[in-house]
């Protein structure tokens, strides 16, 4: 199965110790969830998108934990609920991208067989490639940050403060 191969490949992004501990379990759960999917295409796309996003954000978080420990300032910063791109960013990026592509197409058609036609295709392809890369990178980063925020596991760091505040409340 292609999807399982992709899943296993993405799982390789995790640190080895994490894979050793959870890898088999995660693969098994993924297979169970995949086999229970309804035939609707939209549901499947949503499922695979969620899985890819979850794996990428999970791998990033696991590496941060391994490298800097759970209390790293960067991790805290990246998991701040306030730290997120507005949804309108994605829409604006798509609009800008579409505008640039349309402009390039229009300019190419005006250029026709003139000398400029030799330059336009290469320039257009470079621009399209750059924009595509930027859009993809931005979308991936947004997705990762969105998943980090949604997981909410960063709030577990506050367990001790709960305990202490509960104790102090009990004493007072």
């Amino acid at each position, binding site marked *: 199965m292609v999807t399982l191969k992709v899943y296993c490949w993405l799982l390789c992004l995790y640190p080895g110790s994490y894979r050793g501990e959870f890898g088999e379990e995660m693969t098994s*759960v993924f297979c169970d969830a995949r086999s229970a999917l309804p035939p609707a295409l939209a549901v499947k796309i949503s499922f695979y998108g969620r899985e890819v996003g*979850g794996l990428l954000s*999970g791998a990033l978080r696991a590496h941060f934990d391994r490298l800097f420990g759970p209390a790293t300032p960067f991790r805290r910063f990246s998991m701040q609920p306030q730290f997120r791109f507005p949804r309108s960013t994605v829409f604006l990026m798509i609009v800008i991208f579409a505008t640039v592509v349309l402009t390039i197409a229009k300019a190419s058609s005006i250029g026709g067989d003139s000398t400029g036609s030799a330059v336009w295709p290469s320039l257009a392809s470079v621009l399209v490639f750059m924009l595509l890369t930027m859009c993809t990178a931005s979308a991936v980063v947004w997705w990762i940050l969105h998943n980090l925020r949604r997981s909410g596991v960063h709030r577990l760091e506050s*367990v001790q403060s709960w305990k202490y*505040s509960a104790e102090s409340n009990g004493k007072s």
Partner: protein
Amino acid sequence: MGTFALSEPVLLVLLSLAEQPRHGYSILKDVESMSGGRVLLSTGTLYGALQRLLDDGWIERVEEDNTPRDRRTYRLTSRGRRNLQMEIERMRQLTKVAALRMARKEA
């Protein structure tokens, strides 16, 4: 009372384990069922949360000889249950205040 609230997915994972010990896929389906299909966890998110909960001692693995490695079961620890109880109490107080405020506004 604590000042930090748990996120909905983590709270649902804990609530799922509060009822009975469960394995990963069972947690996934139970969370989906409890939230009416609104919270759909990916495996990456689920196991990220489980790892943190394990590290913090809120949950533990159920050690059984005949359990396959890819289907391990998790359960709440007494610490996890106590903290979950505190979170529920915090939510109850918040709901109470919210209801009072709304009633005052409508009056």
